[in-house]
């Protein structure tokens, strides 16, 4: 039996990248928290904003260049030069998404819906939003607010909070 004297009560997750794996790490952790009855708030910043931007959220990719974990199906080496060819990154990303679908891991928009339905909250970083010239209406409906990192820390207040950066 786990030690329940000091349970985690709240997780504050920060996602700064747009790769499928970084975004999904944040989403799985947030959803997993909500499922366990742990409060979860996710802060998307820099390229991570793609995950909550209507225009980009369905087009997330994994990097086929500069990704040492990249292998062919079956485990054969994946030549870097192949990753540079047009369409390869899109193909690999589509394959990853279909694998996830088989495990009942939803697409990003549906995942955000699951998290918010369970009481989780999604935020966009004000600084990054300004940097990329985005507006509130560019974001999906699940985004609760555009806030500063200071406000995010305020939301983190309380005993049993963990801040996680993916």
């Amino acid at each position, binding site marked *: 039996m786990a030690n329940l004297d000091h349970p985690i009560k709240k997780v504050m997750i920060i996602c700064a990248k747009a790769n499928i794996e970084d975004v999904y790490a944040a989403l799985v952790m947030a*959803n*997993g928290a*909500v*499922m366990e*009855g742990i409060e979860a708030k996710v802060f998307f910043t820099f390229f991570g904003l793609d995950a909550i931007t209507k225009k980009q959220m369905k087009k997330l990719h994994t990097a086929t260049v500069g990704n040492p974990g990249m292998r062919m199906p079956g485990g054969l080496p994946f030549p870097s030069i192949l990753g540079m060819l047009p369409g390869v990154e899109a193909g690999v990303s589509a394959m990853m998404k279909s694998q996830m679908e088989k495990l009942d891991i*939803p697409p990003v928009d549906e995942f955000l819906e*699951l998290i918010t*339905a*369970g009481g989780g909250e999604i935020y966009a970083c004000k600084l990054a939003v300004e940097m990329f010239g985005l507006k509130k209406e560019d974001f999906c409906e699940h985004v609760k607010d555009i806030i500063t990192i200071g406000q995010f820390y305020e939301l983190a207040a309380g005993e049993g909070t963990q801040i996680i950066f993916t």
Partner: protein
Amino acid sequence: MAEKIFAGVSVTVTDEGYLTIPSQWTKEIAIEIAKEEGLTLTDKHFAVIEYLRERVLKGEALTIRSIGKSGVVDTKGFYELFPGAPLKKATKIAGVAKPVSCV
């Protein structure tokens, strides 16, 4: 493993209180487990519980996503019926094993 008496019937449960033999489950037992979880069961709860039992007994893995799409309850409704940790609570009340799902 331990023996526990619910509604006058002795059942075997795990350390966390999940029934180990789903066939020992009855509605009366569900009502008592729910009481321990601070819940009063309604018809809506039972609709979800029976749906979960049916799926687990068929050998299917439960995920919040698939329950939300079942037509029996939506995700928000599921969280409202079993506040806190819905999948864990609902399966406990449904007398089936604790799910190992990550989503």
